[in-house]
């Protein structure tokens, strides 16, 4: 049996989510499961991508689009939503760089040392758009 999967992690385009969204849609239409670490397609095309994936019988997974894989989407979908929860508001540090830096400083590192830890782990973002992260969480919460 053959399985096919596209793992997409290109630079984020905050304005349109392209060309990542097109790549994901192509792969879904081709019968591939897709895993994306990209906020852009979630913000701009999440509904279309999920519908296309459902129709094609494949998965569109995007857990690492926000907070580097902290399972907010799957926890919401599998736990809170079936339990009847409604998203009214959320607050917290939405990017892992902030979390790693604050945790490191709590443990006695300087800010630069903690930032270096985040950079070495490959999770420090060059440009962080908090609005996009909020939009991603909000969309997931409304579905």
């Amino acid at each position, binding site marked *: 049996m053959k399985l096919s999967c596209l793992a997409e992690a290109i630079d984020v385009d905050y304005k349109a989510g392209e060309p990542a969204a097109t790549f994901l849609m192509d792969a879904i239409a081709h019968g591939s499961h897709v895993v994306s670490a990209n906020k852009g397609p979630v913000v701009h095309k999440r509904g279309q991508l999920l519908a296309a994936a459902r129709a094609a019988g*494949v998965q569109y997974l995007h857990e690492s689009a926000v907070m580097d894989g902290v399972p907010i989407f799957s926890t919401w979908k599998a736990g809170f939503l079936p339990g009847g929860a409604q998203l009214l508001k959320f607050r917290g540090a939405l990017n892992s760089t902030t979390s790693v830096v604050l945790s490191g400083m709590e443990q006695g590192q300087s800010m630069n040392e903690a930032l270096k830890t985040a950079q070495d782990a490959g999770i420090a973002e060059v440009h962080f758009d908090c609005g996009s992260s909020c939009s991603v969480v909000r969309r997931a919460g409304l579905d």
Partner: protein
Amino acid sequence: MASRCPHAEPTEVLTLTLVGFGSVNRALARLVHASEESLSRPPFNLKVRYHAIIARHGSWEALTTSALRPATVARIADEIEAGVAKLDGSTPVAHNCRARPKPSVEEVRGIISRTPAGVSVHQLYVVQAEAFKLIVPFCMREAELLG
């Protein structure tokens, strides 16, 4: 009657295409390579092969199904990170792979369209349903024979 060997389970082939080869997908490549042995055993029985790895500066696309193995992709990930390799054709390309410098959006879409298609969940249900159709009469006949 001979018992069924657990290693005789059919091996599934997972074909991966990596779009973007920055820190995230390079880490994935290393993880896949490090997990290759455990993935090949039950309960996964999974053999991982790559169709393509695509970065902004270049791409490698496999011309045969076994051209891009996890070890090859993990090694090139390390070499790119160390700044001693590129996917644009300037570094010797893995056997049976094609390198492309700075692939355009249309070229990336072409690579995606050439990725070997997998079995969808719907098709899986069909396969299971077909198998069920075969198994049920067989079991009923066996039951009749056994009285």
